């Protein structure tokens, strides 16, 4: 090896060797540190889902136990809150994704009066502080005489999710070569077929991303929901409330399940994408 022959004549000092080693591994080290920073809290949540807490607080390690995992639904209020949050998130995602995608198509494809103001209005919910949004929605619902509950929460979530869907789908659409649709028309595809075989497959990743984003935004929203929930308790509200008295390890279990669930979805999407590219 050339390195050894070099070493006979010239031996770099220990300091130089260390500094070279540090330099060549700096990015890896930095990456590991960043990942640790991101995932350490989640690891703690996961770890404490196996704790058998003494008293109410699940913050000091006591003993290892599968108790919380095997008895997730011991406390019916957790399951209840989780069910409500999931149902709201599904409704909000479904409605916001459809409406938002349609708005995005309209904004990108057509020139109409009020187009730029629509753009602005769509942007507003993202820019407005949540407290303000929640409070003004509450005032609106009270004035309309709408009873607070599932419906009002769903309406509020749909509203802010739409903005994120429009932004995501719009950028995907704008990045698409308009010539592709012309090529489809040139190759005997009528408007419906062009949409089905060219536009939709190309925009689908954007729509899917928008749906995932909507789901998680809706699922973990606390501030706006808290204003408009009436007597209903969603999962984030339950956790917040429980934090005052002591969070049962079941919450850690649900948190862990959600984390590994979304991880599985992301990995699956990556694998599908890779398989498609290879095919």
């Amino acid at each position, binding site marked *: 090896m050339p390195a050894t022959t070099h070493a006979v004549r010239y031996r770099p000092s220990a300091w130089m060797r260390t500094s070279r080693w540090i330099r060549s591994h700096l990015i890896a080290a930095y990456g590991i540190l960043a990942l640790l920073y991101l995932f350490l809290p989640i690891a703690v949540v996961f770890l404490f889902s196996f704790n058998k807490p003494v008293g109410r607080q699940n913050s000091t390690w006591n003993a290892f136990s599968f108790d919380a995992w095997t008895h997730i639904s011991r406390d019916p209020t957790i399951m209840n809150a989780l069910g409500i949050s999931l149902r709201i998130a599904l409704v909000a995602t479904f409605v916001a994704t459809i409406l938002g995608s349609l708005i995005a198509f309209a904004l990108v494809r057509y020139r109409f009066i009020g187009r730029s103001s629509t753009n602005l209005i769509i942007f507003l919910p993202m820019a407005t502080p949540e407290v303000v949004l929640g409070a003004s929605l509450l005032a609106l619902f009270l004035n309309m005489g709408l009873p607070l509950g599932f419906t009002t929460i769903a309406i509020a979530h749909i509203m802010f999710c739409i903005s994120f869907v429009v932004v995501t789908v719009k950028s995907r659409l704008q990045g698409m*070569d308009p*010539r*592709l649709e*012309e*090529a*489809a*028309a*040139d*190759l*005997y*595809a*009528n408007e419906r*077929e062009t949409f089905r*075989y*060219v536009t939709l*497959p*190309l925009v689908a990743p954007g729509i899917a991303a928008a749906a995932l984003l909507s789901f998680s935004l809706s699922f973990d929203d606390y501030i706006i929901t808290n204003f408009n929930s009436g007597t209903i308790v969603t999962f984030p509200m339950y956790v917040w409330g429980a934090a005052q008295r002591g969070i049962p390890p079941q919450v850690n279990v649900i948190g862990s399940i959600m984390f590994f669930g979304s991880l599985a979805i992301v990995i699956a999407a990556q694998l599908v994408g890779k398989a498609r*590219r290879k*095919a």
Partner: protein
Amino acid sequence: MAEQARIEDLHLVHVTKSFGTFTAVDDLSLTVPGGGFFALLGPSGCGKTTTLRMVAGLETPSEGQILLGDRDITTRRPYERSINTVFQSYALFPHLDIFENVAFGLRRQGVKGAEVEQRVNAVLELVELTALARRKPAQLSGGQQQRVAVARALVNRPDVLLLDEPLGALDLKLRRQMQIELKRIQSEVGTTFIHVTHDQEEAMTMADTIAVMNAGLIEQMGAPAEMYDLPRTAFVANFLGQSNLVHGQITGRDGADLLVRVPGGEVRLPANRAADDSGGLIIGVRPEKMRIAYKDEQNVNRVRGEVLDVSFTGVATQYTVETPWDPDRPVTVFELNDEGAPEVKAGDNVELVWEYGFTFGLDGDDDLDAGNELAAEAAEVAEAADAEDE
């Protein structure tokens, strides 16, 4: 192919396309002969793409008609026309593999299983891409993508195939290769090809018929050799190859020839090669038709001048000669480097001669520099050089 006999002509009848107040194509009438290789040649922005898009149905003419044979297709949707396009940017579907890209048009037309397979494989063989059928467009080179685009259009056996500068993105070597390839494919399938380009050499080597377009109008149309030999406007004379032009005045007639007075002498040319038979006329002659006289010659036009520059280009030598025609507009002469080539250097006084029959006469009102992008650039360079000298 069996249908070859029935390939119909494409007619554009008084077609105009305006975008707001801007007229991109102006009252264009054109017949593209069926089954031929037709080139639409013109400078950037002259309306070539717009014309093609109207033929494809991607743009609707503001006025006029487009006919395929005797069917009016002016307002037909793109998918209702048996016309396919090879886009300048290829526009291959990124989410489909090569096979599915090519099969797209067939599937939309309702062609089923085994026939799709068989036709796609046949056309992929034609463009020599069989091995790459399962790749995605992003995994191909530019030249390969270009061939996929051609295959995707050809597989439908359209009446007309439109090619919008499909070779623009390729390097010179690949370009030449693809030109030959396209020409071969065209003669094999016999479909009408309309090839848009601003490369005059490409148009001349590939096409049976060339139409030179300028500012939304067709300047002249015909076979390449014919157009090169006898351009009808100064634009064509300059855009299609190179020309030496000078303003003259018709003084009389001698049999079938016209006599034209030009600064410093007289020029004679066959009357049927002139745009006019009285008044002003622009006299033109191609650089390679002129030669430097080294012996006494009869029955030729002549002009004397001083050699400004001699540049050796391998096959030929290019002389730049200042003449009384116009001191600011030196004449260019190409001499083949064969036995007859004279020994001439800058500063020499020479006589240039050319046959009467090689002269052409253009409308005296034309602009001598029309279509001459090179001349415009050269003038700028010369000016800059002059400024430096002083």
